[in-house]
């Protein structure tokens, strides 16, 4: 597709030099479409699946941090392109479109019934295969998806591509030459400061940024942006390459916590005293 854009002479020169120097930076954002956090999640009647009827789907919030960061890098440095990659059934195109409306440039949907049967490991391998087929200087994803909570896809993509993987990032500074990233990684009780050579996979977590809402002009522009579709064959993979290594046999509701005692008492002081006693003598936790 040919785009005509009006540029000043200066812009033409710097862009030409950038292309010649190959300064263009390609950021890939791995995005997952998940049930909204308000959704009530129930197993199917046979307990072998999840009942998604009536469930609203949204972009995984941790991936929103990744998209937002990619857009901020694009705004800060010149010649950055942001591509969204999503593995989902057809409804996933909505998630891609939303990311494009936020400001990403193009998207790819991995839509294949075999891919949908995979676990986190298989998903990561498929995403890695797709990423390998495009220029990639930086891969941003969410630390976790709020449906599976597996925390695996980011590191397994990194491993599949032979790249450094840093998960749980709350700050990213890309060097001016776009070759390195200085990142802050969240750990228990603190933060690690790491220097990472690009390309690398960085997993975003809460605290990295506040994601923007798509603007109306953004939504209109997104309608014209390209979303490619990929099947297993397009990725050069066989079903064996993406066979799941784990499988859910039964879904069940969480163990019911029996609603406990509401502590009676004439005054707050009495209730407090009773509680302290129960915690010491009955629950034995203090």
């Amino acid at each position: 597709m040919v785009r005509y854009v009006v540029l000043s002479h200066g812009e033409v020169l710097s862009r030409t030099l950038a292309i010649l120097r190959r300064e263009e930076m390609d950021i890939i954002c791995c995005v997952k479409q998940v049930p909204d956090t308000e959704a009530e999640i129930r197993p199917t009647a046979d307990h072998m699946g999840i009942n998604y009827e009536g469930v609203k789907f949204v972009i995984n919030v941790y991936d929103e941090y990744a998209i937002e960061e990619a857009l901020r890098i694009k705004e800060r440095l010149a010649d950055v392109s942001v591509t969204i990659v999503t593995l989902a059934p057809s409804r996933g195109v909505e998630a891609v479109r939303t990311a494009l409306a936020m400001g990403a440039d193009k998207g790819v949907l991995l839509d294949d019934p075999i891919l949908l049967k995979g676990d986190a490991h298989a998903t990561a391998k498929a995403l890695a295969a797709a990423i390998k087929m495009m220029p990639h200087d930086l891969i941003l994803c969410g630390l976790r998806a709020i449906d599976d909570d597996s925390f695996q896809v980011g590191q397994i993509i990194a491993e599949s591509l032979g790249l450094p993987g840093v998960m749980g990032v709350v700050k990213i500074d890309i060097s001016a030459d776009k070759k390195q990233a200085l990142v802050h990684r969240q750990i228990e009780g603190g933060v690690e400061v790491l220097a990472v050579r690009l390309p690398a996979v960085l997993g975003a977590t809460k605290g990295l940024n506040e994601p923007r809402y798509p603007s109306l002009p953004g939504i209109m522009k997104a309608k014209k942006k390209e979303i490619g579709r990929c099947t297993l064959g397009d990725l050069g993979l066989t079903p064996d390459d993406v066979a799941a290594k784990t499988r859910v046999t039964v879904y069940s509701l969480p163990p019911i916590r029996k609603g406990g005692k509401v502590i009676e008492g004439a005054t707050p002081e009495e209730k407090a005293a009773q509680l302290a006693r129960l915690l010491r003598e009955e629950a034995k936790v203090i």
Partner: protein
Amino acid sequence: MPGILVYAEHKDGKIKKVAFEILSEAKKLAARKGEALCAALIGSEVEQLAQLLAPYGAERVYCVESDLLANYTTGGYAKALCDLIRQVDPSIVLFGASINGKDLSARVAGRLGVGLTTDCTGIDLDEGGRLVVRRPMFSGKVYADVVFSDSLPQMASIRPNVFIAKADEGRTAEVVKLTSTLTAEDLMVELLEVIKIGGEKPDLTEAEIIVSGGRGMKGPENFQILETLADVLGGVVGASRSAVDAGWRPQSDQVGQSGKVVSPNLYIAVGISGAIQHLAGMGTSKVIVAINKDPEAPIFKKADYGIVDDLFAVIPPLIEECKKLKGE
């Protein structure tokens, strides 16, 4: 030779409690399988920690030591652990689901091409001696029973404070030092600095007692009484999303679906209504206490003990009562 291997994470010269919990639970599985229960220690000076694992069931402790492993890096630890796994050839590898445990297990699973289940709350064996696990999904709204393909080792990370650590002090373990062909390049990143936040207090995810405040606290200065209660009990202070979004508490204090998942022995929810997203973050706490003046607050359905009253009238006397008990 087959065996069950437990990755023993350590920090500042101490082994993380979750390693003791996993060993205690895995002992039963190893006995049923007729295989040895072993542990892996990776770092720069870890041999001295090895015998600490014996009381909890480790029969053999494998150590990989290198200056390059003085600090955790995904690349360095993954290389060392994969080298160890290839030499030891266990059938099952278990990790604590700490931040680095989840990180390391994922990289190792990718490198070895094996299955991994994260943040498990139950482990067992099927009739064939293969690992089966139970784990929360959708932030605890649903639990899944999961089985593995035949690729070995089968790997799982375990939620802290779910299994119970049981020590049998008379036991000793065989200590085996293994070498690793680790080079600086394997680290893949350069660790420049570690910035500590929160002083000496344990992280929420590792705390045994948490006193958590929500919108009912009405303002940041009121969290002082929760800090005092937490200090008396030897716990830490957490917060609901409302309190964090209002700017009353830092992000790192947030418990819930988009915050931290905690599993303490005691969780006291003060002025917290108990939205699904909050419950997702503390649902496996052993004992839950709710203090809220709204009798309809959903938190009361999950709480083991509840007080329906004004938290500002309850907390001060509660502090005094707990001080008295602690003084005994």
